[in-house]
């Protein structure tokens, strides 16, 4: 079993490889995707001088064939050299490092809300099927799936920030508690739509599990209600929730971009959107790489976690 697990993890790693290559290829190709000459794109608003052009050609190996350019670029990336931002002429990696903490804080806060409230409310609704809490959960689920984070964010901002004045409407906060206070509304806005998915899946999976034969049979043998709920219903209901975790991660990452723009937070998301609007290619490449790397690695971890939760995957893996 142990070796099977190791093998399975290796297979997953091998599958993540091509994904990373594809992402990097797309990111690299962005230079060429932009309309016009890559040199002009990379120059941005800087004056077109022969020296500047020469520097760029040197840096991006524009004389080489495409694939060599890509490989050289990739090598630089792997060494942590993400290039220099066009607009600020600063190292991209430093800019990203500055912005990372806010985004990470926001994502972590949202993830806690999504998992805690999403699974909790979904399970509660399933257990009290037909009650007011169930109806509230289902209705807010439809609402959540239909309202993107930037719209939820604007409503929250107006209601709790402007009208009630409970939360700040600007900034990311200085120390931990201050930051917690500043990021509460953004985190809720970000969590709301993603939570709806988790809630919906948890509720449906719980309801499905509760009428399964194994639950009836467990009750028929006199097992305690607690044990039936935790070991039989919840344990099985969580499998589809974990399957959806990949979707949750992608939604959180994408949503964080919108939320940061909505609340004007100086995070990675706003950095990326600024870079996009300024056509700052190195900065776009850097931010996209960081986001994608995060998504691919998170998905990898979820896949591995999944094999622990569902024995069927683990053993089928051994058989093949």
């Amino acid at each position, binding site marked *: 079993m142990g070796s099977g697990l190791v093998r399975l993890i290796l297979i997953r790693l091998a599958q993540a490889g091509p994904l990373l290559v594809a992402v990097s290829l797309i990111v690299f190709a962005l230079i060429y995707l932009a309309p016009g000459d890559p040199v002009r794109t990379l120059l941005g608003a800087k004056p077109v001088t022969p020296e500047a052009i020469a520097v760029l050609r040197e840096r991006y190996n524009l004389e080489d064939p495409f694939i060599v350019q890509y490989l050289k670029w990739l090598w630089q990336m792997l060494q942590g050299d993400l290039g220099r931002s066009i607009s600020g002429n600063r190292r991209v990696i430093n800019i990203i490092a500055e912005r990372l903490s806010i985004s990470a804080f926001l994502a972590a806060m949202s993830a806690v809300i999504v998992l805690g409230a999403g699974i909790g409310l979904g399970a509660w609704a399933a257990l009290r099927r037909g009650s007011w809490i169930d109806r509230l959960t289902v209705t807010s689920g*439809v609402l959540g799936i239909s309202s993107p984070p930037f719209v939820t964010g604007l409503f929250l901002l107006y209601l709790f920030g402007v009208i009630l004045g409970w939360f700040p409407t600007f900034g990311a906060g200085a120390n931990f508690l201050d930051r917690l206070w500043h990021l509460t509304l953004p985190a809720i806005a970000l969590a709301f739509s993603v939570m709806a998915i988790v809630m919906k899946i948890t509720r449906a999976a719980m309801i499905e599990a509760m009428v399964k034969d194994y639950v009836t049979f467990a009750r028929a043998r006199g097992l305690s209600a607690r044990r039936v709920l935790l070991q039989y219903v919840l344990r099985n209901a969580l499998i589809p929730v974990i399957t959806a975790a990949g979707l949750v991660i992608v939604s959180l990452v994408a949503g964080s971009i919108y939320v940061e723009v909505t609340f004007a937070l100086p995070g990675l998301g706003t950095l990326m959107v600024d870079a996009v609007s300024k056509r700052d290619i190195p900065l776009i490449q850097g931010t*996209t790489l960081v986001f*994608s790397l995060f998504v691919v690695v998170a998905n990898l971890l979820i896949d591995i976690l999944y094999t622990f939760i569902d024995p069927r995957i683990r053993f089928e893996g051994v058989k093949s």
Partner: protein
Amino acid sequence: MTLPEAIDAHPVRRVSRRLAQMPLLVALAFVVVCVVVMCAVLAPWIAPYDPSLQRLDVGVSLPSSDLILGTDTLGRDILSRSIHGASTALVGPMVIAAGAFAIATILGLLAGYLGGWIDTLIMRWVDFMHGLPSTLIVIVVVGVIGGGYWVAVAVLLIAFVPSDTRIVRSAVLEQRPRPYIDAARSLGISKPRILLVHIIPNILPIIVAYVAIDFAFALVNLAGLSFLGLGVEPGTADWGRMLSENRNLLLGGNPLGTLVPASAMILTAISMNLIGDWLFEEFIG
């Protein structure tokens, strides 16, 4: 001998009976969608002002008897802009949902019914696309290409195909091992005819339900791109665009400039989701 309650065999009557039993909420959803469609089609006639008419002398103003929902910083009428915004909110998502499913249906049918290496190839591609952070890539690609409504629509359409393909394929796979397909095969009925006469009618309800759900999702995504300044051209009356243009009016000025388009968007998306869920439960579940 007792027959089951469903005595009437006529398909039209069956559908109409189900329509008659539609829950109130779903009926309201249909009303909302109809209103939005009417706004989109009749905008030039029902909007009180030209949506891009700037009145810098008026500037930001709160609702008044003349301007029911007030104006934005450039003095443009919020009501007129919201009504005109319905068209970009409908056309793009419609193209995305229908287009993505048209492609996905072909791929899903090929993968699900033919199986073999075609299936492997298509599903490898689908799995691969699923591993990519698609929303992120959409933002970057649309941004770098230079934005524009139809660029955004096209990129989103492509991004929607993989998950739709998976839906169609699993629906086909559910039908394929059923004996009625085997019976048709053993009668010697041709593959195209089996797909057309036996499989497609049985998976169509699933597709229709998901087109509605996809529509809501596309609406939100497309508006999101416009919100980031990557969708419609600047100045266009578009709900997503209005949100970013008027964001600061929330803090002071005319909050309706954001609240109205935001509500319109959420209402439309909720309605389409409700309709999709209802179709799913009524005609499939």
